[in-house]
């Protein structure tokens, strides 16, 4: 590995991080919007939000990326720069998974809390902002943290479209050096390091949010981080998990 090739890889890391940041922001916005819309009074709103989540969770992220890159320009007549096309496809796909997490966490807040809000004459918006969300947020963080790692893994898909992310730079290095073991090992380690950093950050966030509603941070046990599948057996996740 020459310094020039490392520069290439670093450029790839930067693109991956940017894409991760943008699509995580879009996915968060979308998942809160759709997740909250699924608790709306009007059935039309609930139905539309449900339709969005089912369609976008039902299809594959890579198919969605192809669709945004190739079909959208023809369909609407404008072409997005690759970064925004990737952000759009990843944000909408992973936002649909996030919407289920938000909905599940909102539904898991004790009904008495909501009723208390009704009894005190809060408007629906006040109930959501002052009662439901502060209590639901810390519960969302562990599954959202897992989703963020899934999103990081998803960002590798844009390399198929020729976007110069970390995976793409690995391909270039492979072609340049005519050997692959070394570079792919490095790239896997870089992805792992980013994922590790993300889970740490999310755990810190969870502790702060829990402290805000007067709950203790979860005790450290043998399991290093909450994993998607153990949650699968808990009752909350029957609602959250559903169809992946």
């Amino acid at each position: 590995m020459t310094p020039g090739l490392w520069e290439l890889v670093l450029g790839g890391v930067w693109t991956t991080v940017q894409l991760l940041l943008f699509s995580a922001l879009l996915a968060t916005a979308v998942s809160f919007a759709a997740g909250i819309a699924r608790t709306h009074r009007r059935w039309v709103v609930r139905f539309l939000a449900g339709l969005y989540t089912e369609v976008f969770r039902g299809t594959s992220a890579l198919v969605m990326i192809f669709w945004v890159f190739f079909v959208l320009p023809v369909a609407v007549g404008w072409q997005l720069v690759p970064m925004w096309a990737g952000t759009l496809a990843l944000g909408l796909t992973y936002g649909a998974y996030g919407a289920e997490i938000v909905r599940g966490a909102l539904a898991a807040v004790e009904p008495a809390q909501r009723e208390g809000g009704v009894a005190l004459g809060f408007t629906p918006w006040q109930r959501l902002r002052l009662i439901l969300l502060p209590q639901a947020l810390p519960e969302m963080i562990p599954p959202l943290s897992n989703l963020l790692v899934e999103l990081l893994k998803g960002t590798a898909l844009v390399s198929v479209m020729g976007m110069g992310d970390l995976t793409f730079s690995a391909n270039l290095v492979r072609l340049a050096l005519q050997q692959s073991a070394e570079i792919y090992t490095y790239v896997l380690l870089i992805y792992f390091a980013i994922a590790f950093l993300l889970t740490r950050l999310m755990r810190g966030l969870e502790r702060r949010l829990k402290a805000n509603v007067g709950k203790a941070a979860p005790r450290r046990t043998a399991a290093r981080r909450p994993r998607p599948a153990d949650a699968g057996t808990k009752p909350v996740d029957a609602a959250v998990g559903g169809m992946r």
Partner: protein
Amino acid sequence: MTWDWGAVSAFMPHFWDGLLVTLQALALGSLISFALGLVWTLLMRAPTRWVRWPVGVVTEFVRDTPLLVQLFFLFYVLPEWGLTFSALATGVCALGLHYSTYTMQVYRAGIEAVPAGQWEAATALNLPRLRTWRVVILPQAVRRVVPALGNYVIAMLKDTPMLMAITVLEMLGRARLFSQARFQFTEPLTVVGVAFVVISYLASLLLRALERRLVR
């Protein structure tokens, strides 16, 4: 935007070929992930940390890194080491390995959910260790984990298009080939997208039916 039904009907034969490959990869990948996941779970219950620790690190690593890069790794690095497989076989191995790190957690949760009384009863009946696992614990654990495993099969279905990147002609690979040859991207890609929604929706219905039968 124009929609050309002619392109759809021209694409359909390719689509069915691709679907067959997708389903093959899915079936074989699921089998590998079910078997390997159980192996990981049992290794994680080994009495010595010299087994648990490496297995834990390796599975965590595989789970937190992109499947796409793992596919490239297997596809390009294994031949350098003198192991040559077909693209589909490589893809199936990568899918199975990647998802086995998820199914291991499902199994673990399932095994932990077997009531302690079952273990105690097996001890009281003086059942040998292997027999305890084979006839008491695993049958009850597997019954509990079927829905969660099914979710991962559906997730794996949605990851099969990645095999396209290592030249496997599954649904999306066929669509790309077809659209590059005819410069019609809209129809094949939309057909494939709709197919994924339909297949995963049908699979989730099937899974719900299975869940009702198994989990009582």
